[in-house]
């Protein structure tokens, strides 16, 4: 489904701020894989997801989604394949537009937008039903501005928007990090449900090792712009946090105390 081959990305090349954020990343996800991504700050997790989403062009390597080479497609064209939820709850929605308008925009992801009416009558009832299922009290607030919603409500809405038009790939970048623990758990459970319902191929970045182990069928860890650990299947199911930490110190060659700091 997703095939990343040898991608490299250097930011601010040739300046004092030069940063090799990705240094030869290879990754292949099968249809329906749910892959969690962990790693310390600055390891390159967001950069990898941004490379897939097309925020900028990679320096080297190729990316294909469902067999289609997207390496040279601009971000808005790749959106036809990809649903995204960001760490910042502000980033995934248009605050000055209504809930229903945001949903209607998302429902047309990957389609040509013309002079047809922006929201059909049928959509209204459909969205109402969907919001009802979220159980956040949003079903009666279809015409409220999204800017008035809480962070958790926004992330739930963004999740809904990302999956409204079934994407071939769902990218979640620490999408619960800005929420309080209770809301975070709720949004995470919702993510699980949405992924399972449509069998979405998913990558989820998290700083929580337990979450990374509990969710999905595959786990990768990044370090210094590379994927250094890759476990899946039975091996991943049996994985524990201490084991993971030990694995990491072996690969990175640094001592455990530092790693705890890095990953906490």
């Amino acid at each position, binding site marked *: 489904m997703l095939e990343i081959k040898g991608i490299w990305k250097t930011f601010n090349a040739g300046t004092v701020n030069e940063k090799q954020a990705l240094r030869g990343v290879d990754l292949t996800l099968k249809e329906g894989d749910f892959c969690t991504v962990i790693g310390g700050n600055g390891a390159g997790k967001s950069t990898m997801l941004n490379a897939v989403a097309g925020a900028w062009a990679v320096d080297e390597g190729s990316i294909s989604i469902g067999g289609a080479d997207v390496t040279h497609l601009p971000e808005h064209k790749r959106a036809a394949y990809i649903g995204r939820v960001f760490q910042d709850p502000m*980033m995934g929605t248009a*605050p000055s*537009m209504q809930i229903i308008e945001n949903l209607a925009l998302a429902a047309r992801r990957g389609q040509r937008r013309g002079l047809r009416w922006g929201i059909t009558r049928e959509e209204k009832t459909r969205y109402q039903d969907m919001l009802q299922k979220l159980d956040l009290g949003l079903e009666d607030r279809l015409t409220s501005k999204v800017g008035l919603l809480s962070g958790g409500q926004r992330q739930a809405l963004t999740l809904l928007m990302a999956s409204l038009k079934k994407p071939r790939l769902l990218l979640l970048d620490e999408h619960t990090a800005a929420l309080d623990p209770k809301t975070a758990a709720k949004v995470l459970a919702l993510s699980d449900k949405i992924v399972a319902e449509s069998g979405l191929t998913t990558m989820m970045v998290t700083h929580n090792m337990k979450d990374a182990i509990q969710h999905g069928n595959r786990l990768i860890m990044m370090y210094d712009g590379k994927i250094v650990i890759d476990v899946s299947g039975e091996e991943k199911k049996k994985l524990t946090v201490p084991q993971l930490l030990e694995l990491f110190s072996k690969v990175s060659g640094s001592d455990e105390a530092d790693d705890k700091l890095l990953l906490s």
Partner: protein
Amino acid sequence: MLNFIGALPGAVSQGLIWGLMAIGVYITYKILDIADLTVDGSFCTGGAVFVVLFGQGVNIWAAMLAALLAGMLAGLATGLLHTACGIPAILAGILTQLGLWSINLAIMGMKANVAINVTNPDNLDRLLVSLRFVQDVAKGNRPFIRHPILVVGLFTAAVIAVLYAFFGTELGAALRATGANPNMARAQGINTDTGKVLGLMISNGLVALSGALLSQYQSFADSSMGKGAIVIGLAAVIIGQVVFGKVFRNFALKLLAVSIGAIIYYIVIQAVVSLSNINTNYLKLISAVIVAVFLAIPYWKGRYFTKTSHKGGSAHA
């Protein structure tokens, strides 16, 4: 005082005409979140194209359509400078505005102004609006339906209706999303570059149309007629928001508020001119001060009375 009351119909007519330009400014400033300085040039482009074509006997609607298209071209230039060449929007607007100065003069045959010969009654009758119609209607020489307030009022209503419909379509919604959160827009498959270019074209098309109406109204176009247009546009947008912001929630009403804002602006200016004997050269300074104060008020409010902002969370990615 009598002087002022006598000048009111003219002030309202002018306000309505400039209101169309202000609606164009609203589209870039409020919807796309771009301060577009192209308008100072494209306003005159509209006037120049209209006057020259009209003088050659071209049908008035065709001449106005040509003015609209010329304005859209100006918007296209700014849009491409900004998106395809990566020039900051403000600078892109300034560059186009500067270039338009020469282009506008060229359109007018390198003359600083071109007049419509309104002493010829046939010419006068062909116009949609004219300063003279205000007096003609008052004297009973022309049917009431030709009064500029009525004509431009209807024209404005039609423009608002079209814009209201447009921003309700898929494309219009994509444009609003582009301004509200470009990051989200791209994630939803919207080409934000195209959105910006399209918005700039629509905006400057309207601005040029407004310029075409003003040149009819005053029966001439001149190369400096758009000077400070952006400030007048902003003034109208801000006045409309301050006066009607709390009551006008619907998009069409918000556009109406901009138009009324322009009318209020012209009434105030007219009052200053009629009721004091100030040198009219000071008007631009007064306009600049008024707009600066109104732009500062929301900032001061936010600083000294902490209140959650409505526009929070646009892209700071």
